[in-house]
């Protein structure tokens, strides 16, 4: 147990560098009141949780005038504190247009009809693809830097992220883990969550089974992984999440070790994925200590 604490402290120390880098960036621009570059958009509206967080990490104070409602929810957003004071939108073209934005940042899966309407109304829209790999993170950060006219800030964040990522090494045996979400879904190596798991020093059973998307409970039981990593249940019950309390999953978790995905660090391709990797490394250390 002590080893585990020691290891996670170590991981945390390195991670705190990144978090302080983000904090410093936000703070510095807040204190200096550094205005956005001339020609950069001054009224940015974000309509996607992931672009919310990237924009808040990089923007000049006052540059982002609205984010989604989810951005202020600590459970799913790493920038909840920063988002708390910013007016929330629910992603409808009408309300976005009334905010008179000079840039809308959106995700690839944001409602097409909404974005098309905004474009027709003459609002520039910048679309961000979701991150499917750790390598996508720097690219998304740079894209946001470009869009907001905050290239230097983006570059600083990317450098810090890449240095921290390169510093992670996970020698030794690789335990077999299963990612198991609501509705019995899993993800393989070609997804952000799968890459976080891999970087944390685990092999993914979805890869052995060739499972994409739904992972039947029977196959999960037969694969008998060393660790089952599940999501945190949301408030208000759902049948979709009840599957994570199925006797088979409960038994696997009792028999072995279990982990939890903290949604805010796992969902979006922000530099905070390093925190998710740190959680997984701590879990792996815990597993080794038990052996």
């Amino acid at each position, binding site marked *: 147990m002590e080893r585990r604490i020691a290891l996670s402290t170590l991981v945390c120390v390195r991670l705190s560098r990144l978090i302080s880098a983000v904090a410093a960036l936000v703070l510095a621009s807040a204190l200096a009141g550094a205005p956005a570059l001339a020609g950069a958009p001054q009224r940015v509206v974000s309509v996607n949780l992931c672009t919310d967080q990237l924009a808040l990490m990089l923007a000049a104070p006052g540059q982002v005038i609205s984010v989604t409602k989810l951005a202020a929810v600590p459970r799913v957003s790493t920038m909840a504190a920063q988002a708390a004071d910013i007016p929330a939108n629910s992603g409808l073209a009408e309300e976005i247009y009334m905010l008179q934005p000079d840039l809308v940042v959106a995700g690839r899966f944001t409602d097409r009809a909404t974005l098309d309407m905004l474009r027709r109304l003459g609002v520039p829209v910048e679309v961000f693809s979701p991150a499917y790999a750790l390598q996508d993170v720097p690219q998304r950060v740079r894209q946001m830097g470009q869009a907001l006219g905050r290239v230097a800030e983006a570059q600083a964040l990317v450098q810090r992220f890449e240095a921290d990522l390169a510093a992670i090494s996970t020698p030794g045996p690789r335990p077999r883990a299963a990612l198991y979400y609501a509705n019995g879904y899993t993800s393989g190596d070609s997804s952000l969550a799968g890459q976080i798991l891999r970087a944390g020093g685990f092999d993914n059973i979805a890869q052995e089974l060739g499972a994409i998307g739904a992972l039947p409970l029977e196959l999960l039981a037969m694969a008998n992984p060393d660790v089952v990593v599940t999501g945190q249940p*949301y408030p208000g019950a759902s049948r979709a999440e009840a599957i994570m309390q199925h006797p088979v999953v409960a038994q696997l978790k009792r028999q072995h070790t279990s982990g939890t995905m903290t949604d805010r660090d796992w969902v979006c391709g922000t530099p905070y994925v390093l925190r998710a990797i740190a959680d997984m490394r701590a879990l792996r250390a815990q597993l080794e200590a038990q052996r």
Partner: protein
Amino acid sequence: MTRLMLALCTLVFGLFCLSLLVGPARIAPADSLLGLLRGGLDPVAMVMREIRLPRAILAVLVGGSLGLAGAAMQGYLRNPLAEPGLIGVSASAALGAVIAIQSGLAAAFMLGLPLMALAGALVGVMLVLALAGPRGGALTLILAGIAISAMAGAITQLVLNLSKNPFAVNEIVFWMMGSLADRSLTHVWLALPFTLLGWLVLARLGRGLDALTLGEDAAATMGVHLGRLRLMLVLGTACVVGAATAVAGTIGFVGLVVPHLLRPLVGAQPSRLLPASALGGAAMVLAADIAVRLVVPERDLKLGVLTALVGAPLFLHLIYKTRKEQP
């Protein structure tokens, strides 16, 4: 036991065994049956005892319930279109279940889920019987069914849409189409007491329903207490449909197809149709549940899709026949 009952029992038993052997985890038949008996914590035993066994048992419970309730309602209303799924009883049971889950009642109190589903079904049956009247004419019955189904379905969707949980909305499909995927023994224990109670109540209606085929006056002179018969029918149906819907969602058309197919084989005698229909319903749901695992195993096809594919054409045929009989 007649030859028909023997054949149906064999069919249910065979399908039950087949259901235990079919699944995404490829386990040899002998291994899987051994795993069922062996117990313990190894993966094969877990799959057999915690995933496949509950699924097969629930298919029998749910199918038997729907078949029995369908036969009883058709016998009482003397109308082949009466069926729990079609006339909104299942939908109102689903509404009760959804309210229990979303209000936290199901989590706070073990029997909260089946009891609320039962209450929903109770309201549904009573509304149908009140709206359709004791004779249950085809037109009023269908109109009552449409109204109750639409209302209960709409409120269910409203409750799920208002839920704080981001996954809740996707569950509309489950409550509309039903599924037995990844149920556990907990669900069996939840449904079992109410199902057995309901079966007991409905099975005892046979004599009264037989008498009722001669008309209400004749039945009354034969000593059948119509008010009591009706009350027992309502309670029994609510018990079985409530329990079935709470664990498996709304599975339609079972109670319509099965009694219709078996009626000629039992000489159209309700007391003989009841047990035959229960077995037939169990066989139909077992078969449908095996089919969803074989047709597109990776897609989690819902049970109601298959039963509706079989049932809807038959429903149209029945309506066509009903229309021809009318002047």
